[in-house]
Structures are given as C-alpha cells and as structure tokens.
C-alpha cells in the first residue's frame, strides 16, 4: 500500500469513513434545495435570460449591434472567447496534468474544475459562433462535402486549427468528466429512494456495477485520457494564441504568444476554480475535503503562472523596442500611454503585482484574501485579452485608418449573459451532480485521511 509521510498534512480532515464520504457528498443531492441555492439560481437564470435576449437581438439585427467598426473588427467578442477558453484550462490541467504527476490533492477539486471547464468552453464557443453573423451556417467551418463546387475550409489558417482544437478539447474534456462521473452516479443510484430520481441516475450511471475488471479498465482509461489531454491543454491555448500570432498586426506577431497564453490560461483558470470552490466548500459544507492546504496549493500555482505571465509582459515590452520595428514599438508605447492605457495598467496591477502577495504564507492561506485575489486575477486576465486585441488593432499601420472602440449594450449584455449562463449551469451541476469525485476520494482515505495518518504514527 502507498504510504504517505506523516509530516505531510492530511488531505481529508476529521475521522471520516468510506460511508461518511458518500454521505457528505450525496446527501445534499437527496435533500431539498437550500434557500441560498434557490436565490443564487434565480439571479443566475435572470442574468442568463438577459444574455440570451441579447444574443437573439444580435442574430436578428446583425453583428453591427456590437461596437465593432472598420478598424476594430475584433473586440469584446474575441476577448470574451479567449477569456472563457482560458478559464476552462484549469479543469483539464487539474484532472490531467496533476493526475500524471500523482498529485492526490487534485481529487477534491477535479470534478468541479472539470465541470467549470466544460461550461466555460461552451461560453467561449458562443462568441466566435455568433460572430459568424449567419449562425445557422456555422457548420461551414467543417470540411463537409458541399454543393458549392470544391469548396473546402483553409487548413493553413489558424482559425481553422482552432475549430479542430476547441471541438476536440470540448469533447475530450466532456468524455473525461463523464467517465469519472459514471461510478459516482452509480453510488447515488444505489442510495436514492425517490423512484423518479433513481431512474434518472440509473440511466446516467450506464449500469455501472463496480466489477474488478471494470475498475482496472477505468483506471487505465483515466490514465490514458490524462496522457493525451495533457498535450491537448497546451496545444489548445497555443492554437488560440496563433489566431493572433500568425497575423501581421503589430503586438500580435510574436513567437512568445503560445507559452504566454498557456500560462495565462492556467493562471485565470485557477483563479476561477478558487472563486467557485471557496463558495462551494462553505455552502455545501465540504471543509473537510477542500481545506486550507488545497487552497494554498492552488495559490502557489497562481503565483507561478502569474509570474510567468509577468515575465512575458515585460519580455514583449522589451522586445518591441529592441526589434527596431517602429510599428511594433509604437504598439507597445500606445498600450501603456495611449487612450486605452488605463486597461494596460489595470492588467499590470491585477496580473503582475497582486499575485506576488501570495509569497506571504499568511496571505495565501487566508480565505478572504484568496477570494478577493481570485476575482482580481479574473478581472486582470479579461483586461489582458482586451489590451492585446483592441489596443493592437485600433492603431495599427496607417494613422488615417486608426479608430476607437466603444462597447455597445449588446456587447456588455452578451458578456454578462454568458456569466449568467455559466453560473446557471454550474449551480445545476452543484445541485444534481456529485461535486467531489467521491469514489476517487475513497482511494486516498487510508493514505491521506486524518485519522488513518494519526494511527500510522503509533
């Protein structure tokens, strides 16, 4: 059996048994919805419906209802797209990369982080899909045989790579998540007393029975999926960055983009995981499973990725001047001193300076500070994408073609709306799905559970 050092803090606090784990995670699903949940869900749903209304208006009127113009052809839409995709990255990182590195603390957070990934990628997809204008023709991005002659999408284009990257990422993440959920649904099925709910969970659990051979296959599938999802995490955001890096717009055309985007994505994703988990652990009473150690580990990931992002900002700033290309150089002077300089400095403060506070153990183990910082980081990361996209194109080569960008109410409504849809989906998940991978948690109870660790000491 795997032995863990006694010096290492236990991952499951309290004197829990296997049955306690099942109880703690499944009983909130069995009971009636708490009042807080109903309030949060109603608010999220109202915001979501407003967002859907904005989307319907956009489809009806056309993308002219966004604040885009001839110079700034990409703005909030792609900013929101990259922001959401970035947030999604932490889920797969936690479930895949941390599984390969045998990080047992991931087991308390992977399920909700994966759910967050899936919902975030759906939100991300809304923006490019609706940016197409005639959204009912979105399938034209796929290489399907067609009646228009030999017309195929251009496989040399980074946008085409993105279609493949995002759809692969979404579908593989979904499958990875669901494969883990099947045994947990079986646990709920076998406990559920309400016949209707029992039937639903029975269908969702695919008849899982927990046979020894099935568990062997389960572990192999999880490991292989983790192995192939790991390069996928890195490739997807690299490809997202190539949407910009393969163009010749000053400020976009740099080779630093893929690693810079990937670390930024993990940075923002972990911040969002913190935001969601800090609320969830409190409202669903999961403090024994998601405790300070987990939060501290995540904060450490935030310092590391935040610092990589900081170095990347300074590198691109230096290289823009060092390149000797006046357009490139101007793009950056314009970023920190132009009309949108406020967004640049907001990004710098939120992303580079504030995460450095986590070097202090007192701060990184403080729940209030962590929650506040997680919001700050997400704001900062939204501004990062806004800075990269809008400030680069609003003043590119010819001054006569320079322009400005002002977000319309539909721009804002759609963005806020996606936050509403995201929270609606996440709250539904928190209500009806096992929020922790309970069957995986049981495997670490004897090695990392508090009572078992103390027993080993004697």
């Amino acid at each position, binding site marked *: *059996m*795997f032995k863990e050092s006694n010096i290492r803090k236990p991952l499951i606090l309290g004197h829990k*048994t*296997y*049955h306690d784990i*099942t109880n703690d995670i499944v009983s909130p699903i069995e009971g009636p919805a708490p009042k807080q949940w109903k309030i949060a869900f109603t608010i999220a749903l109202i915001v979501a419906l407003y967002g859907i209304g904005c989307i319907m208006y956009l489809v009806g009127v056309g993308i002219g209802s966004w604040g885009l113009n001839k110079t700034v052809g990409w703005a909030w839409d792609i900013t929101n797209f990259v922001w959401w995709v970035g947030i999604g990255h932490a889920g797969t990182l936690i479930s895949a990369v941390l599984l390969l590195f045998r990080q047992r603390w991931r087991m308390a957070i992977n399920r909700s982080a994966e759910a967050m990934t899936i919902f975030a990628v759906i939100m991300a997809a809304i923006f490019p899909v609706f940016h197409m204008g005639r959204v009912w023709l979105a399938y034209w991005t796929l*290489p399907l045989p067609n009646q228009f002659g*030999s*017309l*195929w999408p*251009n*496989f*040399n284009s*980074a946008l085409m*790579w993105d279609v*493949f*990257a995002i*759809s*692969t990422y979404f*579908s*593989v993440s979904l*499958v990875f998540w669901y*494969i883990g959920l099947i*045994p947990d649904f*079986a*646990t709920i*099925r*076998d*406990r559920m007393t309400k016949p209707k709910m029992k039937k639903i969970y*029975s*269908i*969702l*659990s*695919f*008849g*899982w*029975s*927990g*046979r*020894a*051979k099935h*568990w*062997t*296959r*389960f*572990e*192999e*599938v999880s490991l*292989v*999926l983790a192995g*192939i*999802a790991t*390069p*996928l995490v890195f*490739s997807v955001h690299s*490809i997202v960055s190539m949407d910009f890096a393969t163009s010749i717009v000053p400020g976009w055309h740099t080779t630093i983009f893929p690693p810079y985007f990937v670390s930024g994505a993990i940075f923002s994703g972990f911040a969002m995981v913190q935001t969601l988990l800090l609320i969830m652990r409190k409202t669903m009473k999961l403090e024994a499973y998601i405790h300070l150690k987990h939060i501290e580990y995540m904060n450490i990931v935030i310092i590391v990725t935040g610092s990589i992002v900081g170095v990347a900002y300074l590198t691109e700033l230096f290289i823009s001047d060092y390149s000797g290309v006046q357009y490139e150089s101007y793009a950056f002077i314009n970023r920190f001193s132009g009309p949108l300089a406020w967004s640049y400095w907001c990004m710098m403060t939120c992303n580079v300076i504030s995460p450095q506070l986590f070097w202090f153990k007192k701060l990184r183990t403080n729940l209030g500070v962590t929650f506040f910082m997680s919001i700050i980081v997400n704001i900062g990361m939204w501004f990062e994408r806004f800075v990269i996209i809008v400030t680069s194109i609003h003043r590119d080569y010819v001054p006569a073609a320079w322009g400005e960008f002002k977000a319309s109410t539909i721009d804002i409504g759609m963005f806020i709306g996606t936050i509403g849809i995201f929270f609606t989906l996440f709250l539904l998940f928190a209500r009806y799905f096992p929020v922790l991978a309970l*069957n*995986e948690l*049981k*495997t670490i109870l004897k090695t990392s559970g508090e009572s078992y660790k103390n027993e080993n000491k004697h």
Partner: protein
Amino acid sequence: MANKVFHVMYDDDQKLLDAARALVAQGIRVKDVFSPFPVHGLDPIIGVKRTRLAIASFMYACTGTALAILGTWYFMVSDWDWNIGGKPNFTWIENAPAFVPVMFEFSVFCGAHGMVITYLLRNGTLPGMPATNPDPRTTDDKFVMEITTEENNMSVQDIESKIRATDVYELSIKDY
C-alpha cells in the same frame, strides 16, 4: 444439485485483500469482486489480466493521424489546390507544417473517443443498462466477492467453511 453463488461481503478493502489471498491460496477461484473504488493489488490475486485499452487508443490515434493526412491532402492539394499569398500547395509535404495542428488534434480526438467507446462497449456500461451489483452497498462502503460452485470443484460446505474462516461481514448463498 443447482449451482450456488456465494456473495461474500467485507467491510474493508484490506480485509477483502487478505481474504482473497487466503481463498485463492486454498484453490478457490474468485469469479468477480464488486467494490466502491478500485482496490489496488487485487487484480493479480484474483487473476484479472491487464487491459489492452491503451493499445487500442494508440491504434485509434494512428487512424486519426492517417485520416488527417488523407483529408488535408485531399482538401488542400488534390481536390482544389489553393494559392494563398503566393504560397501554392502543389504537394502535401510542402505544406505539412501548417497541417500539424489539425493532425495532432484529430489524432487525439480519435484516440480518446475510440478508446472511450471501446471501454463502454467492453464493460457493457451503456445508457439504460441495468446494474448488476449484488448489493447496493457495494457502491458505498462494502466489498463483495462473488464465488460460484460452477467454477470451483468443491462442495458447497467446503467453500462455505473456507469463506467463514476469513473476516466476513455478511455471506449470502443463492441458487444460480
């Protein structure tokens, strides 16, 4: 005499492992084990072979790579050779670097989904399938070992006495 099936329940994974080891040493063949989580070290004792799903995944991924190569060649070179910015696609190999992302993504796509579909089919776990665990507690905190007289050339009493000698929590014997 009708064949009998023994459902031997344990309340701890370590007890299950010890019992499985003891019973197998006495020549009893364990048909299956139902557990709430994967019990490490159990497979070699009860003779569960290593799964070949990883190999299957590799083969699906190779199929994906081959299809992506074929697709990009057909769409971009053979059927309609594009000339983009004066960079013509006369041969696939000239443009291969631009196709690497799609080749990679499609390989992962086929590798992952192929493996998962195979996994679900091989397990027989599909939407609407009935659960086959002998006791609902096996998905919570109990571990059940299934032993049949059909697979063991011993009398029912013999098997039962050997089972009783282990740290059993509950035992049920049924006609099979």
